[in-house]
């Protein structure tokens, strides 16, 4: 495996959108910190629930301006499941603003963004080269590999990708696994979705559900279901670089996101051994680490060096 230090291709780092409901002040403080962090691209915007309105589009645009002023790329992320007229109107408004690149997370965004450069998020089902070529013709400049796809499919897609189209990998965080009409946080608090009382705000990193034998399994975040385990691609850093992956995404969590980014940044420059970095990341993965999807296994499994045994 080629040494990353000598590799001509070194992936850049990105920060995914905040997936949880945090208080407005916490969000503003978080981005103030992230603007100073070693990250190249910052995605921001509400992707889970349209009822969460503690930040409006204007707020996100203002933060995005500051991100750009700091010399980083800002990308506006959009809702993953769009059902109502109101959600569609907000999406259309976000897509109409041409100052920033938009991350499409629903087919509706592709409709609005066609003809200008856009990013396809991991909930756009891009599984093969023909879909990649089709979207590239419509303006795709970067796609996030659907999280259940591993290195074999990534390699095949990267070998035949259209010129100029970049590939981003969900590299660290609880995996986004499913979306529903039902709000599971409200459901488990015996509240209706229309009277949810924003109870997801009580769980800044989601609500973990545990199997009947005590295994932390899934993480409920409103209408989204995530993995309880934190997916971590750091041990595969050399392989990821050699394949030609362009960007690695760290998904925000309420604690230590800056530390996670620093570990990835140091590993990318060769200043930190990935296995040593992984040992440190274990402390910030409340239910343990996993990497199964990358190696073609069940997503919850952990097989790469340093991942298992908390």
């Amino acid at each position, binding site marked *: 495996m080629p040494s990353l230090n000598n590799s001509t291709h070194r992936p850049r780092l990105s920060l995914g959108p905040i997936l949880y409901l945090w208080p407005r002040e916490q969000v503003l403080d978080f981005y103030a910190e992230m603007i100073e962090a070693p990250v190249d691209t910052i995605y921001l915007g509400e992707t889970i629930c349209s009822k969460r309105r503690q930040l409006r589009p204007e707020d996100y645009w203002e933060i995005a301006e500051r991100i750009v002023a700091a010399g980083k790329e800002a990308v506006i992320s959009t809702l993953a499941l769009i059902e109502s007229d109101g959600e569609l109107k907000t999406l259309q408004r976000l897509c109409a603003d041409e100052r920033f690149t938009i991350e499409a997370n*629903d087919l509706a965004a592709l409709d609005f963004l066609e003809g200008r450069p856009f990013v396809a998020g991991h909930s756009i089902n891009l599984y093969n080269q023909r879909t990649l070529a089709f979207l590239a013709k419509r303006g795709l400049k970067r796609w996030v590999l*659907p999280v259940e*796809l591993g290195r074999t499919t990534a390699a095949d897609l990267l070998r035949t990708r259209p010129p100029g189209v970049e590939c981003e990998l969900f590299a660290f965080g609880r995996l986004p696994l499913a979306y529903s009409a039902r709000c599971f946080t409200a459901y488990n608090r015996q509240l209706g979705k229309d009277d949810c009382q924003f109870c997801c705000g009580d769980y800044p990193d989601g609500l973990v559900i545990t199997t009947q*034998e005590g295994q932390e399994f899934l993480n409920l975040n409103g209408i989204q279901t995530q993995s309880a385990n934190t997916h971590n691609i750091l041990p595969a850093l050399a392989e990821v670089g050699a394949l030609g992956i362009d960007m690695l995404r760290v998904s925000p969590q309420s604690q230590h996101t800056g530390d996670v980014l620093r570990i990835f940044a140091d590993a990318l420059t060769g200043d930190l051994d990935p296995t040593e970095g992984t040992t440190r990341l274990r402390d910030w993965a409340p239910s343990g680490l996993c990497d199964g999807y990358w190696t073609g296994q069940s997503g919850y499994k952990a097989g790469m060096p340093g991942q298992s045994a908390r």
Partner: protein
Amino acid sequence: MELVCPAGNLPMLKAAVDNGANAVYIGFRDDTNARHFAGLNFNDKQIAEGVKYAHDRRVKVFVAINTYAQPDGWSRWTAAVDRAAAYGVDAIILADMGVLDYAAERYPNVNLHLSVQGSATNPAAIGFMQRHFGIKRVVVPRVLSLAQVAHLIEESSVPVEIFGFGSLCVMVEGRCLLSSYASGQSPNTYGACSPAAHVEWRDTPQGQETRLGGILIERRSHSEAAGYPTLCKGRYHVAGELRHAIEEPTSLNTLDILPDILAAGVSAIKIEGRQRSTRYVTQVTKVWREAIDACQRNPQAFRPKESWHQILAQVSEGAQTTIGPYERTWH
């Protein structure tokens, strides 16, 4: 309103046709469709016979090629589209944009339907698929309330098909990776949720256990009935309490709201269950045919017969049925 019924094999197809389906949907014997189960689905000879049987009786045949192709399997998906087109089926049900692009370019005269696995839940998404691939129908995911379905029909020029009966997906179809998180295989990548090879049933002193990919997704008392082992319907601990944290083991039945479905302008109603039995298809098709006919004759006076509910309850998976997301309180 069309009644679209499932057929996992030739006897099921004939049962659907004979009992009043307007269309049957089928799949090939591989991972190109979302009911990729051992012993199920159609080979070439069976398709030819099935299409002839249905067409002789003026019933349509749709072929579902509704999983997501990866580069190493791409030719299987294009071959499936080629075969479906060659047999003169009435529509191909697709989800993958790449496969849609191939089918639309190669077979401009074949009807393409967007599968529920295509995850289109709003007019803009449907418009995008119509503009590029000329889809003639969309099967909408089970996330919209009936009011939202009605509004979608008003806003979109593509006819809408909805699921009316059968097992209930809780997540947006096409965007649920729970199965592969536990087992390594999902509807998108393999054509099945909770593939049988990864499911273990075990009797223990604590109860009957179901595992998927090694993960304990349910432990029930020996007297409780076991349904299809989807992990979204298992019991888990949430904040110290053991409960169905995602959904109860219910299945979908919309018979009670049939007049509203009709009034909403739904073009077709789909019955889930290609993996079920000939008896299931016979009973469910018969009841739904009778119900739709009665409802269309006189929607105001429509009341589901008790006998219909009894017959459907006998073939339903799980003890309870639900109107599911069509009713806002479910959300």
